[in-house]
C-alpha cells in the first residue's frame, strides 16, 4: 500500500534510471514491440519518484538544478526570500559556540574527512547540498558514558551574512544524554546536522529556534538509529522570519525506537516549516511523530509534511504520526500533509492523523462567561494545546523555559 507520496521532480542526471531497460538477448521482445516502448505522449522519460527513499541525494550543490519553488521539497517555502542560501556562495567557516564543560561529552571542530561525516544521510535538496559543499570544519558533539547528562550548545553569534554549517552528534553505544541546540540572535543559515546513535544508546536532541525576527534558518537533520537505540528528537521553533527544520530518521538497527516531537508558534508574517521523514529500515522498530503548532496574526504560516516509510525489511514495525494545528486568529495558513508508505504487510501498526482547528469567538465567549479574561482565555487554550509536547521533553528546566517562551509569544503578539 502506498499513500500519496507527492510527485517529485527527478533531476536530469537521474532520468536514465527510470527509462525501461533495453532488452539485449534475441529471445526477448524487441524495443519496438507493443507495450515495451514508452508511450509517445505524456512527459518523456519523466516518472515521479514513487518511494520516499528513492529521492535523489547528493552532497554536491552542482548536482541539483537551480531551485524554482515548484519542487516537492520547496513548493510550500518562500524560496525567493533565500536564494543566497540555495544558489549563493556561503561562508563555511567555524563560529562561536558556547557550552558548559560536561563529563563524557566533548564539543569541538573536526575536519571534513572525519569518518562520521556522511554516515547518517545526505542532502535531498539544494540548500542542504550547498551547506555540505561549503563547510570548512564540522562541529562534533560526542557523547559517551552510561550516566544521564545534559548539555546546552548555544549559537548566538552567526551574523546576518549567508552561512553554511555542519554538525555531528554522536552517541556511542550504551551512552545516554540530552543535547540541547540553542539558536538565538541573527542568522542566515543553511546547515546539516547528522545524528548517529550506536547500539543501545539513548539520546535526546532538542533543537530550539529562538532567533531574532529577521533570521532565516534552513536545517536538515539526518539521524541513524542503531540496534535497540532510542532517539528522542524535538524541534521547537518560535523565533525567526523563515525557519525550516527537516528531520529524517532512519531506524537502521533491529529494535530501534524514535520519538519525534515538534512545537511551533507562528506569529504574523512568520514562516515555520518542518518536513519529517521516518524510514523504518529494520525489524521491530518503533516510531511516534507528534507535531503541534499554533498560528496567530496576519500572514502566520506553518507547513508540516510527515513521511513515514515502512520498508521491506521492517517487519514488526509500530508507527504513528500526527500533526495538530491551532489557529488563533484570521489571516493564517497551516498546511499539514501526512504520507504513509508501507512495503511490508507484517507490521504491528501504522497510523496517521492531522487536524487543524481554530480558537474562535464562541470559545472565547464561553471562557469569558466563566469569568476568565480574554488574555487568560487565549493563554489557557494555547498552553493546554502545546503542553502535550512540552511535558514530553524530559528536562524540567527546559520545560519551564519553554512554557515561559510560549507565554512571551502570546504576549508579544497581543502587543503587535
Amino acid at each position: 500500500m502506498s499513500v500519496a507520496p507527492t510527485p517529485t521532480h527527478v533531476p536530469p542526471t537521474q532520468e536514465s534510471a527510470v527509462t525501461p531497460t533495453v532488452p539485449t538477448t534475441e529471445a526477448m521482445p524487441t524495443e519496438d514491440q507493443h507495450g515495451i516502448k514508452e508511450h509517445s505522449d505524456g512527459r518523456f522519460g519523466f516518472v515521479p519518484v514513487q518511494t520516499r527513499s528513492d529521492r535523489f541525494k547528493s552532497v554536491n550543490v552542482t548536482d541539483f538544478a537551480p531551485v524554482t519553488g515548484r519542487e516537492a521539497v520547496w513548493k510550500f517555502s518562500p524560496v525567493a526570500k533565500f536564494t543566497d542560501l540555495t544558489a549563493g556562495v556561503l561562508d563555511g567557516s567555524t563560529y562561536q559556540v558556547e557550552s558548559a564543560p560536561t563529563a563524557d561529552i566533548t564539543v569541538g571542530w573536526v575536519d571534513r574527512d572525519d569518518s562520521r561525516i556522511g554516515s547518517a544521510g545526505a542532502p535531498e535538496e539544494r540548500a542542504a547540498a550547498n551547506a555540505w559543499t561549503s563547510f570548512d570544519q564540522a562541529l562534533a558533539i560526542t557523547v559517551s558514558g552510561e550516566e544521564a547528562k545534559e548539555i546546552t550548545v548555544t549559537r548566538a553569534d552567526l551574523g546576518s551574512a549567508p552561512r553554511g554549517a555542519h554538525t555531528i552528534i554522536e552517541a556511542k553505544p550504551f551512552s545516554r544524554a540530552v543535547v540541547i541546540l540553542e539558536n538565538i540572535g541573527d542568522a542566515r543559515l543553511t546547515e546539516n546536522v547528522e545524528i548517529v546513535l550506536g547500539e543501545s544508546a539513548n539520546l535526546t536532541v532538542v533543537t530550539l529556534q529562538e532567533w531574532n525576527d529577521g533570521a532565516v534558518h534552513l536545517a536538515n537533520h539526518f539521524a541513524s538509529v542503531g540496534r535497540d537505540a532510542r532517539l528522542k528528537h524535538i524541534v521547537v521553533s518560535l523565533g525567526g522570519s523563515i525557519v525550516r527544520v527537516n528531520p529524517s530518521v532512519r531506524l537502521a538497527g533491529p529494535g530501534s525506537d524514535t520519538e519525534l516531537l515538534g512545537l511551533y508558534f507562528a506569529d504574523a508574517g512568520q514562516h515555520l516549516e518542518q518536513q519529517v521523514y521516518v524510514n523504518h529500515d529494520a525489524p521491530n522498530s518503533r516510531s511516534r511523530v507528534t507535531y503541534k503548532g499554533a498560528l496567530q496574526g496576519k500572514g502566520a504560516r506553518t507547513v508540516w509534511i510527515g513521511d513515514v516509510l515502512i520498508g521491506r525489511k521492517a517487519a514488526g514495525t509500530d508507527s504513528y504520526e500526527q500533526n495538530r494545528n491551532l489557529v488563533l486568529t484570521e489571516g493564517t495558513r497551516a498546511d499539514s500533509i501526512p504520507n504513509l508508505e508501507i512495503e511490508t504487510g507484517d507490521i504491528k501498526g501504522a497510523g496517521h492523523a492531522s487536524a487543524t482547528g481554530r480558537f474562535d469567538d464562541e470559545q472565547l465567549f464561553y471562557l469569558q462567561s466563566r469569568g476568565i479574561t480574554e488574555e487568560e482565555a487565549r493563554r489557557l487554550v494555547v498552553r493546554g494545546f502545546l503542553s502535550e509536547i512540552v511535558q514530553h521533553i524530559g528536562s524540567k528546566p527546559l520545560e519551564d523555559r519553554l512554557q515561559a517562551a510560549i507565554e512571551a509569544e502570546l504576549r508579544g503578539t497581543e502587543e503587535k
Partner: protein
Amino acid sequence: MSVLEIKDLHVSVETDQGTKQILHGVNLTINEGEIHAIMGPNGSGKSTLAYTIAGHPKYTVDSGSILLDGEEVTTMTVDQRARAGLFLAMQYPVEIPGVTVTNFLRTAKTAIDGVAPPIRTWIKEVRDSMKQLRMDKSFAERNVNEGFSGGEKKRNEILQLELLRPRFAVLDETDSGLDVDALKIVSEGVNRAKENTGLGLLLITHYTRILRYITPDFVHVFVDGRIAEQGGPELADRLEDEGYDRFLTESNVG
C-alpha cells in the same frame, strides 16, 4: 438581598438581511432565591434575552438596562459580568480543545473568586459534585465538552453552576435533548445549587417538562420579544394544555 432587574430592554442583532430588532422592551425583576421560568415559542427571543444578559457580542442593546444590585451590567465585559455573579448555562456548550475540565474549572474558580481555591477542599468539592451529577471521574481529564454527548455537556454546565456559585443563573433550554433520567439528574443539580447558595434562577424553556422537577415561583410567557403574560406555576400547566396558539394569534393580530 441581591436583585437582578431588566428594564425596558430593547435588543437587536446584525444579520445578513440587516439589523433585526428582537427584544421590544422586556421588564423583569428577579430576587435572590426566586425561580422564574420564561416560556415561549421558537423565535420569540428567549435565547436572545439569555445571551444579552451574559453579554454575547452578537447582540446590541439599543436601549434599556440590566441592573445587578443597581449596577449597570450592559456596559460590562463578558468576564466582568461573570465575576459580578452572573452565570449562563448554555443550550449548546462549546468545545475547548486542549483544556481539560479540571484545568478549566480551577481557572474559572480562580477568576471568579479572585484567589485560587484551596487545593484539597477544591478537589473534594469537584469530585463530590461530579459524583452527584453521575459524571465519571474520567471527565476531569477530558478536554472541555470535546466528544461529550448532549447530556454530558448539560451536566458539565450544571457542574459549573454548582462550583462557581453565581448569584444569578440563566439556564438556556437546559432541558432540551435530555432523556428523562438525565433531566432528573440535571434538575437535582439545579435544586441543590439553589439550596446551597440561594441563587436566583431564570429558567428558559420551550416545554413544561423541566418544571416538573424544578418548581418555578413565577412563569412568564415570552412572545415576539416581550413578556405577554405572567403568573404562577399554574400558568405553566395551562400552557401544557393549550400550547402557545393563543398568544401567537394575538401577536399576529396586533
